[in-house]
């Protein structure tokens, strides 16, 4: 029987609960555990687990800085973040932009961790529904901004930021 392999890189206070919750699940195996630092990246790169459970409750800028490295060195590993309640959306959004495929509130660990891991393994995202409409709004807004920027730019010219006074703006008819 093929197991879903998971590397658990959680803060000490979450580690045991995460491991126990996953061990209870049939078809899921905890391949290794590590503190959520540089060691987690190295472990994921070496073991190439199906899922990396990565704590996002502390030193979050460091985690963000490391995420592209995980995507690059363990491309098949899906990253599921463990978050604190009321984590700033900006941080979550940036983590998703850098390759995380989902996040789970640490309060939901026993109840939903198994489901979240299975979802990521199945090629799905694990994101609260209320976040989906925000993500969509953001996508539409950024896509529109990109279109406007492309239209406003003179052909062949670099896009200028608003900090400079506009030199000469040629608007396509």
């Amino acid at each position, binding site marked *: 029987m093929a197991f879903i392999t998971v590397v658990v890189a959680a803060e000490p206070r979450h580690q045991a609960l995460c491991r126990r919750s996953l061990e209870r699940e049939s078809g899921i195996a905890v391949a290794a555990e590590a503190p959520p630092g540089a060691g987690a990246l190295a472990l994921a790169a070496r073991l190439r687990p199906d899922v990396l459970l990565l704590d996002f409750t502390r*030193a979050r*800028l*460091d985690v*963000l*800085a490391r995420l*592209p*490295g995980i995507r*690059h060195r363990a491309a098949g590993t899906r990253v599921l973040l463990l978050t604190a309640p009321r984590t*700033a959306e*900006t*941080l979550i*959004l*940036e983590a*998703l*932009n*850098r*390759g995380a*495929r989902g996040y789970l509130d640490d309060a939901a660990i026993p109840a939903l961790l198994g489901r979240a891991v299975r*979802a990521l393994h*199945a*090629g*799905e*995202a*694990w*994101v609260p*529904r*209320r976040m*989906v*409409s925000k*993500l*969509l709004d*953001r*996508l*539409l807004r*950024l*896509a529109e901004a*990109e279109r406007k920027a492309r239209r406003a730019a003179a052909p062949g010219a*670099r*896009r200028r*930021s*608003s*900090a*400079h006074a506009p030199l000469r703006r040629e608007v396509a008819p």
Partner: protein
Amino acid sequence: MRPRLRSGNHVRRPAASGDLLLASSDPALRRRLATRLRHAPGIARVHIARDRAGVERALAELHPPVLLLDLSTRGFRRLETVRGIRALSPTTGTILLAESPSDAAALRAVKAGARGYCARAAEPGLVARAIQLVRQGEIWIGRKVMLRLIEELSALHARRAEEAEDRLALLTRRERQVSHLVASGASNKEIADRLAITEKTVKAHLTHIFQKLGFQSRLHLAIFTLQVASGATTKVQ
């Protein structure tokens, strides 16, 4: 042909919050869904439309909170019609039913303004849940489609990160130093110590940086700086 109102009441009035407009040219689908949905929790009345004209009339009369639209309904062929529906009744959330929904099609649909996307053969229980969530303002798409949404957003951000490099060039060397220290999590005092300047000077630098880049917070600045520094772009190594 007027949409058939369940109670037989033909008075024109807007739909109540528990009402649903079900649109399909397929009598079997109408029967299957209408029967089950009428008994679903949170759904009061199910109004029926059989073709595009019927849908447009019902939307204008009822402004139902949710429209469940079978895409094979006569008169509906292309995605632009979703925008047309929103124009007719901006408060109506549309859930599309499609034959074999591909993830790409589902994402296109919600980008065009649909609030949900289900398979035509979906279990009525699932459809009822979708209706409930859409009424609450959420979006109903499968988790695979959610992943696509995230990936598209991610690609867009990667393109912006490339442009961020251009923007970083607007800063002076000192301002870039301050930005990198902010990105490493340093406080103003730590930055001042590190650069051998006063905290007041650090704050002045930050004010200039925020003005030049159009940010309002350290967090945005930190993330922006990280984007450029760690190469969160798709053109990695």
